[in-house]
Structure formats: structure tokens, C-alpha cells
């Protein structure tokens, strides 16, 4: 089979960082090619080189597409050849409709006048192709992340795509949505679309990939043919981190549940705009010191909404409920008060809610605890550097220095900065919302170790995750949420994927 794409000796440097160092990548027509590697290995950068985000001339090496050398000066150039990239962060216009987004910049128009009938008809056809059951006129902002992802793919399909690049498409998706997306990729393959998928979820990689290329420190370390050899996750992990990894979860030693640290009673929250929509319905929970408690549920179960409303009523309008910390009613009605009461919330949306992207690591790590690096309101740059340096080491943040702007960090390393920020605030109760989203296996293990250590120090950890294995591997107890209410509570011994799912299904059936 002749290769569709060959990238040879690609080298790309940024001031102070060699992101790619002679990378080779060969993709054959009609295959699904997985690109894996640790955070900061250079996966996104490689794809940006390929798609012309970094124009020809800003990197070294050559790219052959269909056997002919290409030199893209912009994303438009690469799109013309049928190379379409869907970035780690989605790029849809929230207020425009699905149809408008799909045909943005490529409108079905004659003489500048848009033909809506044609637009909608073609959109419907595309949506059917990606299996999205929505009207073309629906504004994109009303769709969940999973559906938005499908719109992105529909948009790609509208452009005669030959090579589809997906940068961590499933990072923000629920398991069901991920499944759907992967099925779609397989279907597209059957129709002759070649794709490159970047993912940290190795089970998905195993499921769909025909070939797996592993990057480490900006260089290609292995390329496996998944059809020829039986590829195990462990083999991929070994290539990624450079050594075999025995376990995915650290042992839960030294952890001991103590007194009740936080208790929530009958917490009820309404949607911020639609007052009649109750999003969190009479939730009660308890968290003991030294415990890691999970909140399981599907997308839209109201877990993030619950967490954010607990954290200074940052989401929605609280209608009723009471929070106690160490047995005393606590005022957590504003973020600063919640922080003062010992709460911290690590958001699932680091770009929008977690980081000031244009500022350095020092700035971001210290933001929630400026008192810790200042005296009488005057900042100490020395202290800031020292603190940031400490977390850089503890969290293994890959960066040329702590004065690097976080926008220049890879996605996973940005996540570590958000975590560091909240660790530095020294909370007693830490609410983690998808704490390992977009993080590589090695770093996940490190983060789990940190979570265990925090629990062993007597803190309480509330962990929201869409990855059930993660909850099962880490938690002492799991609450299951569905449609805004807690539908069950399972101890570590009782909990299993099946039990969790059956609780959810049972609730749905009763509600229906």
C-alpha cells in the first residue's frame, strides 16, 4: 500500500524548546493512525505543522502528501488538499446554528446570496452521516461537547476530506459519546477516509487504530502495526514512558477515614437562566477526612453543576441546602469564602475557567493564594518563583522554565498547572472535576499518587470523573448521580461498572 502521507525529519523549535526533533510519520491511505505520547511529547505540534498552522519555513523537514512534496503556508492550503484538523479545543461559533457553522467560510451561495434550502438539506445529509439527530437550525451553544464534536466532523466531511486529524477528540466526552465517535471513525474508514487520532485513552487506541506511532520528547520512538502484531496497552505505555509500568493506580496505603469533614444537606440548585429548571435536586453527601469519594454519572448528570454551586455558588441559583464543614455550618456563598472555609475546586475546563493563558506559570500557580507569596499586599517575586519551581518538580510540569506563559504549554501540562494552583491554596476539601482529562498515563499515576498523599494527610477529596475505571481504582466510596440527584452510594468493595450503570438505568426507568 502506498503511503498517503509521509513526514520526514520534522524539527520545530520555539524559543527555548525543541518541540520536535527529526520526527518521522508515515500514514497509509485508508487507515486509522493513532498518535500517542506523553504530555508535551509534541503530538499537537506535529499536527499543527502538518495542517499549516505553523507555515512552511517555520520548521525543518519535508512533508509528502500523495507522494508529492507540499509546502502549506496556511490552514487554507492544507484544507484545499483535503487535510482537515479538529483541534484539541473546539472552534465552533457558539451563537451560530449547526448549518451555519458547518458551512462557515464555505457557504452554499450564489453571487453572495446564501441558499438556505440547500444549506439545510446538505446539513441534514451530513448530520445523518455522523449520526447526529438535531435540526440544522439549532444553535451550537445548545449542544453538549459530544455533539459539538460531531458537528466538527460533519464540517470536515463537508469539505471533501481525505485526511482527518482529531486531536484528543474524546477527552471531554462521556464513554457513550466516545463510543459513538469511534464507531463513526470506523465507518468513515470504510468509506475511505484516512484519519489520525491523538488520544491518551489507550483502550480507544487499541480499539480503532490500525497503526500506532509513539512520540517521546519530540522524537518518534516506535511505530506499531496493530494488524500485524497483537498490541497491548502495556506495550504502548512502555514506549511512551520509556519503562514498563506495573500498575495504573498506586496502592491506597496509609489512608484512613476519620471524622466527617464536609457534609452537604438537601442541596438544590436551579439553572441560572431558566429558573424553573432544577439542575441539582436535593443532594446530600458526606466526606470524611482521609477519604477519596467519587461522583459517578453520565454527562449532564449535574455533577459539575453541583460542584460549582458548592464552590461559592459559582453556578446557577442555589434554592436550598446547607453545607457543614467539620460539623459547623459553613458560609460558602462566595468563592473567597469557600476558599477560606477550606474548599478548592479544580475545574474541568482549564482554558475557560482555570487559567489565565497569557500569563506565566508563576502567576497561575499563585493566583488562588496570593497571600502565600506576599507580605502586606506586596508580592515577592522570589517567593513566587520558589513556589512555582516546587510544583514544577512535584507535578513534573514539562517546561523550559516557570516563567513560560501557560498558553505555550501542552494541554496536559496546563492541567498540571491548574492542579498545582489549588494544591498551593492548601485546601482541606478538594473537589476535582475530571482531574486527569488529557493527561498521559505516566502523569496520571503521579496525580493519583498525589491524591492519595493528600488524603493520607487528612484532607477530603471529592472526585468527579467520567472514566469509571479511574473512580473504581481510586475511590473509597462512590456516589452515583443521575439527572441532578444522587441515586445511590457504593463502597469500594461493592462498586463496579455494572452496579453503577444499573443504578443509573434503574433511575431512568423509574423517571420515565
Amino acid at each position: 500500500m502506498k503511503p498517503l502521507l509521509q513526514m520526514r525529519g520534522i524539527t520545530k523549535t520555539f524559543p527555548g524548546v525543541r518541540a520536535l526533533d527529526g520526527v518521522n510519520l508515515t500514514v497509509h491511505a485508508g487507515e486509522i493512525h493513532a498518535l500517542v505520547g506523553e504530555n508535551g511529547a509534541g503530538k499537537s505540534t506535529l499536527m499543527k505543522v502538518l495542517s499549516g498552522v505553523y507555515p512552511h519555513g517555520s520548521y525543518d523537514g519535508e512533508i509528502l502528501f500523495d507522494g508529492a512534496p507540499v509546502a502549506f503556508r496556511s490552514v487554507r492550503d492544507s484544507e484545499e488538499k483535503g487535510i482537515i484538523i479538529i483541534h484539541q479545543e473546539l472552534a465552533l461559533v457558539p451563537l451560530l446554528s449547526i448549518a451555519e457553522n458547518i458551512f462557515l467560510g464555505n457557504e452554499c451561495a450564489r453571487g453572495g446570496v446564501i441558499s438556505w434550502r440547500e444549506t439545510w438539506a446538505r446539513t441534514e445529509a451530513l448530520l445523518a452521516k455522523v449520526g447526529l439527530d438535531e435540526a440544522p437550525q439549532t444553535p451550537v451553544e445548545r449542544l453538549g461537547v459530544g455533539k459539538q464534536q460531531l458537528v466538527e466532523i460533519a464540517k470536515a466531511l463537508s469539505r471533501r476530506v481525505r485526511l482527518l486529524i482529531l486531536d484528543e477528540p474524546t477527552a471531554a466526552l462521556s464513554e457513550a459519546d466516545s463510543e459513538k465517535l469511534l464507531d463513526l471513525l470506523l465507518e468513515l474508514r470504510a468509506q475511505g477516509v484516512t484519519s489520525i487520532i491523538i488520544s491518551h485513552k489507550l483502550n480507544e487506541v487499541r480499539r480503532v487504530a490500525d497503526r500506532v506511532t509513539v512520540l517521546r520528547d519530540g522524537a518518534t520512538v516506535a511505530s506499531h502495526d496493530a494488524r500485524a502484531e497483537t498490541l497491548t496497552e502495556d506495550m504502548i505505555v512502555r514506549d511512551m514512558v520509556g519503562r514498563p509500568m506495573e500498575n495504573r493506580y498506586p496502592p491506597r496505603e496509609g489512608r484512613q477515614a476519620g471524622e466527617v469533614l464536609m457534609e452537604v444537606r438537601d442541596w438544590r440548585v436551579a439553572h441560572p437562566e431558566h429558573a424553573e429548571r432544577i439542575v441539582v435536586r436535593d443532594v446530600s453527601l458526606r466526606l470524611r477526612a482521609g477519604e477519596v469519594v467519587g461522583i459517578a454519572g453520565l454527562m449532564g448528570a449535574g455533577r459539575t453543576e453541583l460542584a460549582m454551586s458548592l464552590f461559592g455558588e459559582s453556578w446557577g441559583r442555589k434554592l436550598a441546602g446547607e453545607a457543614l464543614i467539620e460539623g459547623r455550618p459553613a458560609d460558602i456563598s462566595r468563592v473567597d469564602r469557600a476558599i477560606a472555609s477550606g474548599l478548592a475546586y479544580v475545574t474541568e475546563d482549564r482554558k475557560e475557567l482555570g487559567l489565565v493563558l497569557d500569563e506565566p506559570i508563576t502567576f497561575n500557580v499563585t493566583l488562588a493564594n496570593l497571600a502565600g507569596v506576599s507580605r502586606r499586599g506586596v508580592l515577592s517575586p522570589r517567593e513566587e518563583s520558589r513556589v512555582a519551581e516546587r510544583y514544577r518538580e512535584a507535578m513534573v510540569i514539562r517546561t523550559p522554565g516557570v516563567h513560560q506563559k501557560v498558553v505555550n504549554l501542552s494541554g496536559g501540562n496546563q492541567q498540571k498547572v491548574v492542579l498545582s494552583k489549588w494544591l498551593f491554596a492548601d485546601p482541606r476539601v478538594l473537589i476535582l472535576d475530571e482531574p486527569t482529562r488529557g493527561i498521559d498515563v505516566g502523569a496520571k499515576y503521579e496525580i493519583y499518587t498525589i491524591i492519595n498523599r493528600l488524603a493520607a494527610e487528612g484532607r477530603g477529596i471529592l472526585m468527579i470523573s467520567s472514566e469509571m475505571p479511574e473512580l473504581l481504582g481510586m475511590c473509597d466510596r462512590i456516589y452515583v448521580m443521575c439527572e441532578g440527584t444522587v441515586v445511590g452510594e457504593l463502597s469500594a468493595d461493592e462498586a463496579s461498572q455494572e452496579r453503577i450503570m444499573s443504578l443509573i438505568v434503574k433511575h431512568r426507568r423509574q423517571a420515565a
Partner: protein
Amino acid sequence: MTTETAQGTAAAAPAGGAIRAYLTGHLREYGLLIALVAIMAFFQVLTDGTLLRPVNITNLFLQNSYIIIMALGMLIVIVGGNIDLSVGSVLGFVGALAAVMIVNWQMPVWVTVLACLLTGIVIGAAQGYWVAYWGIPSFIVTLAGMLVFRGASLWLLEGQSIGPFPTEFQRLSTGFVPDLLPWLGEPLAALAGARRVNGLTMAVAALASGAILWLGLRARARDRAYGMELEPTAFFVLRNAIVIGAILFLSWKLATFRGLPNVLVTMAVLTLVYAFITERTTLGRRIYALGGNRKAAALSGIPTERLTFLTFVNMGFLAALAGLIYAARLNVATPKAGFALELDVIAAVFIGGASMSGGVGRVVGAVVGAFIMGVMNNGMSIMGIGIDYQQVIKGLVLLAAVIFDVYNKRKQA
């Protein structure tokens, strides 16, 4: 584009590469300084040396003091992610109020000054309230404020000009600090063969130069100790030489004229205070966080609404102060005072490197930006260029500065 030059890790790269990499990262800051020096040299030549004559330098400071004072507040508002279009009108209104109080009502100067500053604070609070707590776009709120206060000063003055002010009030702007160190000036005058030299001015200049050098060296030592990106030695020396040279040169000119103008002192002190607040305090840090990502700031426990409110209160205060200085300088309050001045102030802040989207910009940049505008205004007026061309040229300079910014950012990507 050559990638070879920017390659390699910073440590491994040859010295030339490191300097070039540093320069690409900081082109903006040097560019601003170089632009100011170049523009001054340009007009110095075109005006046959009038620009840097002692009397004109004094004038330059007087003319630009109110722009610079307002630019300090505007920088903070813009860094916080907002804008204030009303400052020109507020300046005019406060001047009118001062005139009515002093000239018509015969109120004591100190009462008037306090009342005017308080009025500015109230105006800022009134506008800030809608922006901060109601989420109404600042553009709209302050556009309304611009109309309201323009009208209000017309009403206050009943369409007339009111003046003149007592000398006590005029001193706010046109007064000079008395020479406290004449014994220092006399030998200097003898040495340089000048008619007289203001000792205090030269002493202050020497102290300021020393402080700049000392602080610069200390910051450098800190950067080195903490492995921060280090400014190449040549640049450090050159930059400080230019800055200190300029201070000594300008001070000498001032010293051989009438000494330190009061406004220069006010302006310098305010600049230092605001530079310190924005760069070294938690308050300043929070404002940058607010402008950089409001939601993330709020979720970090930063009271974003209160901070936004305070940025406007502060702006109102500074606009009032500028209004007093402006009225004192012209010695009359007119209904047109401060007309379109907000545009000069905003332009100064953007020329100084602030970003429309908030979170970016420095006090020093805004001040240099204001001086760039000021020197252009002054130089072109001396040359007798019509107000029509002046506007066109200033507009183009603003555009060029921002294009330079955007271009620079792209090149770094």
C-alpha cells in the same frame, strides 16, 4: 523566515542566537523606547532645536501632565478588560465645577480641590456601578457618561467661559518647586557657565538615576538567581544609559530654566505609585487576572465585581485631578475643555502596548505612549502643521503601533 537562528535550547544556542531570541520576545518594549527617542530626535531636527529648549521641555511636561495622569487610570481600566470614554468630559466638568466654586462662589481653594476630587470619585463610582454590578458594557456606560458630563459642564458654565483663577489655584499646574538646594546649583552653574542652575532639580535627577540603576541591578541579580530569562548585558547597559542620559539631560534643561514644575512631581510620584501597585502588589495582580480571564479569576476567589468597580472609581479620581490641573493651566474653564481628550488618553495606552481584550499592558508603557503622543503634538504645533494633518498623523501612528504589536505576536508563534 529563518528558523535556524531561533533554534536550540536557550542554553545551547550561540550568543548571537540568544540575543536575537531575546529581542524577538521583547521587541515591543525596546521598540517603544527607541520610537520615543527617534521621534524626539526627528522633531528636534525639524524644529531647529526648539523642541528641546528648556522652556519647551517645561511646556511639554505641563501640556502632557493631565494626559499622563489619566493614562495611569485608563491603563488600569483597560487591563481590567474595560474602557472609559468619559474621561475627557469628566475632566471638563470638574474644571467647570472648580471654576464655579472658586470664581463664582468664592470658595477656598482647598475646599474646592477636595470637593472636585470627591466629585470625580463619585462619578467613577456611578459609572463603575453599572459596569461592575450590572454587567453593562463599559463602552456604553461611559459613552453615556461622556454625553452626560459634557452637557453638565455646559449647564454649569451656562455656555460661558469662567476665569481667571487665583494664583494659589494656578500653582497646581504652573507652579515650580522652590529650590531648596541653591548651594548645590551655584557651583554647577559656575562649572557649566550657565546663568543659574536649580540645585534641587539636579539632586533629584541624580537620586532618580541612582535609584533606577540600583533597582535595575537588583532585579537583574534576582533574575539570575532564579533562572529567569536574562536581558543581555549590552541591552541592559544601553537601555539604562538611554534612560539615565535622558533624565539627566532633561533635568539639566529644567534646572537652567525654572526648576521642577509642580505637575512634574505629581506626575512622577503617581507614576511610581501606580507602577508599584500594578507590578508588585496583590491588588495589581488581581486586576491583571481579572482582565486576562475574568471567569478563572472569579473561580480563584478574586472579587471581580468589586475590582472592576474600583478601577472606575480610581479613574474618576484621576480624571478629576487631571481636570483641576487642566483648568489651572489654562486659567479658565470653558465648555469645550477636554473635548476628545479621552481619545488621546486611550491612544497613549494602546501605543504603550496594552491590549483591547484586557490583561496586558504596563504603566511605564502607557506613560511612554503618552509622551510619544505629547512630543508629536508639541513638535507638530511648533512646526505649524495644521490640526487637520496632526490628527491624521496621530491616527496613523496609533494604527502603526498596534499593527506592530500584532505582527510581533504572529512572528513569535
